[in-house]
């Protein structure tokens, strides 16, 4: 064949255009649920899910209603009665009759993006007061929401040691005195360490094995309908660390299902795990708990349910583990619910919430709330209720003086924002509704009898709401400033710190700009005032605090505020005036920014500390999300400021910020990587992935 003929043949060649929708769907699911998104996913759970659910839910609700109308064994869905199943058969029938998933799971796989996703607060390896520690004790604790209720995190300290969750390792570092700092032990795990608690001489490690996929036939096999299902496993291990150099495993618990969140109150660690209830060959699975090698299936008759309509069901199990007494068997309670999306824990109650989407035209979405009473190892499901709208995160909820308060956004028919007060039976006693139409809640904070609420679309109204009368809450005042806050932190009784972004108005919306820290004076509740603000960087600047308040360190007695920031600068010569509003800057710095905060002087940048060793990394764009030299947390012990990245712990003087010492962590074996070979370049194997570029042969 001649050269020209072959060319012609090649040019006219009919090539196969074949697709495999099964592979396409399954790979999509696998990617979206991969560990890659673990710590950063679903900052806005409702938003991610909204477009999908809108399409899906009509089908589902029709299916549900069809079933309910035609002889379900349950008189009505939606009443608040709490019951336990009388038999396995009853549970089986409940799931079969009421779950709508059989009809749509596979076809609209997008729906699953939200179904199993963790709550925003727990996704990020997640205050008024700080946890154990706090000012006075000489070291800082995790930034928690409720005094006395510790929250799991990737970094903990007891004032002498620092404990770190890093990939599949838990690392114990002797941190104080700083000039003698060193790693004393490492515990390796099979799965990924989600977070830890330290309680005296006990270390509690929460670990999750990467989810994998199984396919369950949820219909008759003849129909060839498959349901992709993620089967993660959660491990809870308790170590005795009386010898920090030799931690010894005391007990090991595990369950099938997804870790949602955990808290520690006194000597008890409480963990919430969810697992979908699914049907296979007419069998419905039951949750299992493995304790030191013994398997226990939760009997159907132990499972609570309230007849809340939903399109799929999950078992939500709350477990209580005595961290100090290894002989005390863990206790648990399991409820058949929709998928929990948020969780708030006071010293006496766990509140679980999940969204209930509207079932008809004009019927808005609601949040179903469940109160589980906890006292030592007693766990009792006591009440449930419902409020209109969706909950943003744990900070949108609070319990105070025998009342539960919650701030929600209703998405349908233009956003509206509301605050509800409920009694302990979870009946609404009072409310403030329809705040800031068209906007949504960016952050909320309850402080005693008050609620502070930031909504945003173009400017940031900070609302001050009085909740002292649970039957008649009222808006006291509000302040409109540019920018918004993603996180509100109490400074004192009459001042609040807001962490968010500056914005510039663009007519019908606003462009985000640099990271902004504000100090608000709310002593005159009818006229809140922004008494100080500081903006770091241009558009493209970011901080983990915006998604995960645990990255925030504040101590009023020391006037100290520390947070990791990646600062971006826009090269103004590169853009036209019009482009400047939306131009992204290049990252020029990543590190812990240390501020001095006082009521007199406001917020002042004191200095910054970076772990970046090669500034070129930033220029190359390596900094972005999984860069090991990015500072993630900070804490202090005595007069030493500790900043922590995957690569190292750095120690600086808290007063002068002078460098003292550093400890390299196992995460530091990282090499820059060249994804795109430069001319002449080659695409011979391994150019992508291994960091090497082979020359052209």
């Amino acid at each position, binding site marked *: 064949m001649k*050269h020209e003929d072959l060319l012609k043949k090649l040019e006219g060649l009919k090539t*196969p255009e*074949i697709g495999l929708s099964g592979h396409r769907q*399954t790979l999509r699911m696998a990617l979206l649920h991969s560990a890659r998104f673990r710590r950063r996913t679903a900052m806005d759970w409702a938003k991610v899910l909204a477009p999908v659910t809108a399409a899906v839910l009509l089908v589902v609700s029709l299916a549900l209603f069809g079933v309910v109308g035609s002889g379900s064994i349950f008189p009505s869905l939606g009443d608040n009665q709490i019951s336990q199943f009388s038999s396995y058969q009853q549970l089986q029938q409940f799931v079969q009759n009421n779950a709508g998933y059989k009809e749509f799971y596979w076809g609209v796989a997008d729906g699953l*993006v939200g179904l199993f996703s963790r709550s925003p607060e727990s996704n990020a390896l997640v205050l008024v007061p700080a946890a154990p520690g706090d000012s006075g004790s000489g070291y800082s604790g995790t930034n928690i929401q409720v005094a006395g209720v510790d929250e799991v995190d990737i970094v903990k300290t007891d004032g002498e040691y620092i404990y770190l969750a890093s990939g599949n390792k838990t690392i114990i570092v002797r941190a104080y005195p700083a000039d003698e700092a060193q790693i004393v032990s490492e515990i390796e795990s099979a799965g990924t360490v989600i977070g830890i608690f330290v309680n005296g001489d006990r270390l509690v490690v929460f670990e999750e094995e990467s989810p994998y996929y199984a396919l369950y036939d949820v219909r008759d096999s003849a129909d060839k309908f498959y349901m992709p299902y993620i089967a993660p496993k959660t491990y809870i291990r308790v170590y005795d660390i009386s010898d920090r150099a030799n931690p010894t495993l005391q007990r090991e618990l595990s369950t099938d299902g997804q870790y949602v969140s955990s808290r520690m109150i006194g000597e008890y660690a409480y963990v919430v795990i969810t697992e979908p209830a699914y049907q296979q060959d007419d069998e419905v699975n039951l949750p299992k708990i493995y304790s030191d090698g013994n398997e226990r299936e939760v009997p159907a008759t132990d499972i609570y349910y309230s007849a809340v309509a939903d399109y799929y069901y999950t078992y939500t199990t709350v477990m209580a583990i005595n961290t100090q007494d290894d002989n005390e068997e863990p206790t648990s309670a399991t409820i058949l619910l929709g998928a929990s999306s948020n969780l708030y824990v006071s010293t006496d109650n766990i509140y679980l919430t999940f969204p209930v989407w509207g079932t008809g035209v004009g019927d808005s979405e609601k949040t179903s709330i469940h109160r589980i009473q906890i006292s030592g190892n007693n766990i009792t499901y006591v009440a449930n209720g419902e409020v209109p709208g969706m909950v943003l995160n744990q900070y949108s909820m609070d319990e105070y003086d025998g009342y539960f308060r919650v701030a929600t956004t209703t998405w349908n028919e233009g956003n509206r924002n509301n605050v509800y007060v409920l009694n302990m039976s979870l009946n609404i006693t009072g409310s403030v509704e329809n705040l800031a139409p068209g906007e949504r809640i960016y952050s909320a904070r309850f402080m005693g009898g008050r609620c502070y609420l930031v909504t945003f679309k173009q400017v940031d109204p900070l609302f001050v709401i009085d909740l002292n009368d649970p039957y008649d809450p009222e808006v006291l005042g509000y302040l409109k400033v540019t920018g918004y806050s993603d996180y509100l932190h109490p400074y004192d009784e009459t001042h609040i710190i807001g962490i968010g972004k500056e914005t510039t108005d663009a007519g019908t919306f606003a462009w985000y700009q640099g990271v902004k820290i504000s100090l608000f004076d709310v002593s005159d509740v009818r006229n809140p005032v922004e008494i100080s603000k500081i903006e770091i960087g241009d558009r493209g600047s970011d901080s983990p605090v915006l998604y995960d308040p645990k990255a925030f360190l504040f101590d009023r007695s020391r006037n100290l505020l520390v947070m990791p920031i990646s600062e971006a600068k826009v090269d103004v010569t590169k853009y036209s005036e019009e482009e400047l509003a939306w131009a992204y800057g290049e990252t020029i710095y990543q590190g812990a920014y240390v501020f001095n905060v006082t009521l007199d002087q406001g917020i002042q940048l004191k200095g910054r500390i970076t772990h970046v060793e090669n500034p070129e990394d930033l220029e190359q764009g390596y900094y972005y*999300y999984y860069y090991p030299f990015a500072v993630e947390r900070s804490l202090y012990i005595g007069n030493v400021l500790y900043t922590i990245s995957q690569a190292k712990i750095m120690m600086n003087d808290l007063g002068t910020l002078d460098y003292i010492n550093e400890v390299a962590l196992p995460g530091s074996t990282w090499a820059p990587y060249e994804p795109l070979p430069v001319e002449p*370049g080659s*695409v*011979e194997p391994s150019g992508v992935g291994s960091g090497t570029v082979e020359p052209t*042969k």
Partner: protein
Amino acid sequence: MPADIDLNEERELVKQAQKAPDAFAELYDRYYAGIFGYCLRRTADLETAQDMTSETFVKALNKLWQFRWRNVSFSSWLYKIAANEINQYFRKAGHKKSVSLEELQEQGFEPISTSDPETELIEAQEELRQYQDFLEIQVKLVELPARYQEVIALRFFEKKQIKEIAEILGKKEGTVKSLLSRAVEKLRQSC
């Protein structure tokens, strides 16, 4: 492949995709068909194409934060990863089943090839068999060195412009043209 995508929009999407699964999902939806098609036409084997495609997107996701906007589109970057995967696959002796299944499992993904709806695969295999002209060329093509395979596949199977091929291969347009010409000649000799 999808229609022309506004590069600014795509740039924003890639940035978002580093932290937001829904943005990554959008990129995936845009490029899955193109990448799967490319893998299929390079290997003429559906199961291998599945593996290569999975591997490409897993790598892309894992390396996304390292992706830099150097006047190279995201799509070209994906093709480049896919090309590397395929070359690596061919380089393994006897074209044995790639290691990608294990690699995937190590990373915590459980591929579903064993439990995939089998009828779909069988039907697709049937369909593939009907492209006799293509299969004849393809079988000769895989005997050539990887650099010739790539350039021919991109030009004649994927119908890419020279400019885009240059972008994917990281070579100058002139280099691509002469490489292409040599590749066609090599293929002619073996036909």
